[in-house]
């Protein structure tokens, strides 16, 4: 069973994603912000991380940067979940350029497409 960590400050969002991935037979770990997410990741070493960008305490980009500083974290696939505009999307692309394992999904996708993207990243 693959282990997925969802880092998301919107609790409803966190819940719906958790429910879906549970239904898809994932072991689901949850974190409400970047700080917590970093801690859970380093402790639990999930197979993949679903990361929101705009969050209190520590935002998504900082969390990602810190993760990449860790030996294990260097290669973990990260999916950025965003409801930002195409412009901001472009900004993210620029910031994460050269990232080893990075994907982007948008919150207006169908949830089954989010799952598809996750599975794709895990070669499932």
């Amino acid at each position, binding site marked *: 069973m693959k282990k997925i960590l969802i880092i998301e400050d919107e609790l409803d969002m966190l819940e*719906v994603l958790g*429910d879906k991935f549970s239904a898809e037979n994932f072991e689901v770990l949850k974190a409400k912000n970047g700080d917590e997410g970093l801690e859970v990741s380093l402790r639990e070493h999930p197979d993949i991380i679903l990361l929101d960008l705009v969050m209190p305490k520590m935002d998504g980009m900082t969390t990602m940067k810190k993760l990449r500083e860790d030996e294990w974290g260097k290669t973990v696939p990260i999916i950025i979940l965003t409801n930002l505009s*195409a*412009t901001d999307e*472009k900004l993210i692309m620029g910031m994460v350029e050269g990232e080893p394992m990075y994907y982007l999904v948008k919150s207006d996708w169908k949830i089954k497409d989010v799952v598809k993207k996750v599975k794709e990243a895990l070669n499932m």
Partner: protein
Amino acid sequence: MTETKLKKENMYIKNRLSALSPIFHKMALGDFSFDIDIPEKEDEFTELLVTLDLMKDDINELVRELATSEKELEEKVKNRTDELHQKIIKIDLLNENLKDSQHATLNILEDLNEEKEKVEQKVKDQTKDLKEEKDKIETIIESIGDGVFVIDPEFKIILFNKAATLISGLSTKSVLGKRYKDTLKFVFEENEKISDDFVKEAMIASKIIEISNHTVLIKKDGSKVPVAGKVAPIKNKKGKIIGCVIAFRDVTKEREIDRAKTEFVSLASHQLRTPLSTINWYAEMLLEGDIGKIDSGQKNYLEKIYRNNKRMVALVDALLNVSRIELGTLAMDLKSIDIQKASEDLISEFIPQIRNKKIKIKTNYDKDLPHIHTDLKFIRIIFQNLLSNSIKYTPADGEILLTIEKSNSHILITVSDTGYGIPENQESMIFTKLFRADNVKEYDTDGTGLGLYIVKSIVRQLKGKIWFDSLMFTRVVAGKKERYGTKFYVSLPIDIMEKEKEPRGVG
């Protein structure tokens, strides 16, 4: 000769001479009516008498002739005198008339003089009134809170009120009599190019023109003030344009409020998106049977929830786009775009709706359309809105035609339909934010009134143009003539940068 004979001869001479005496006497008196007896004896005396008699006859003849010509002369003189008399009478008459006229003229002159004095007084009074009126108007203009200046046909400033001095930082004295272009710098905010065509435009179009959005005035100290306002041509009674009045105001505050409003909308929309996404995903999961099979009644309700939620997402997206446009954060991402492919992709996304309404869609692309250097997401928004409007506002079995043509530096996209059209009296509103035409509200309650506003803003950002024809077809329905159809045109530069390089006409 003897003495007797001498005496005898003397006597004879004496007798003969005395016979001549009465003749000479009469002649001396001018009487030539006498007869002369010519004696039979032929001598010098007889000869003399014959000569006299002939002379007398000649004289008589002459006298007679003279008398005749004198009579004729008299006759002529009389005639001429009569003529002259007639003429004199005529002249007298004329003279009389002339006198009358002269008299009348004098009277008129007198009247005129009086009238002139009256008019002069009136003019004096009116001038006074006018001056008072002018002073009043000037005081009013001076006191208006908006900046106001007036220019003459040579574009020279002839009035410049206090608010104008406050906004511009220029004193009235320093601008009066100068061409407004030399003193007031109205420029476009984004590129600082001169933006004062509005005056020319108002004069040419002879109507009130709005100062274009995003115009700023460069103050005396070099700082910039965003301004808005209107330019009105001044016409005389004959309709000739004799100047222009420009009223403008500092819109810094309005801009701030607008920005705050837009930021609020942006923030609110962002906040709305998360719950909407959650609803979306749960509805989707239920419909997919993730937590158990659902029956057809449940499916029906869930589909309604899902569809309506999608609508809400679309509205929030539109609002977000609008706020991004207004905040200027909708940045362009320029790439080489295959416009035909973009169009075909979009059409394929609409196939379910097109099939549902049994609408026929035709396309007509110019051969070898060039790739255009532009922003794909903008192009998609343009196609999306124009196509979805056409589909929404065309009744079943209608037709939609999409064409793309190329010209030298532009491509022209047209989307025409056989739909309800745009009411004539609402044509000018169609690109206005939140506006929806009356006739389509009843067919479709989904519309946000944002689509064409967004399209227009985007087309502007892409340095293109958008316009439309409406109600260009006519058909007869139940014996009544009915106009229908709408055709939108979008012209876009093939290379947006190319267009930018072109020198812009600065009037």
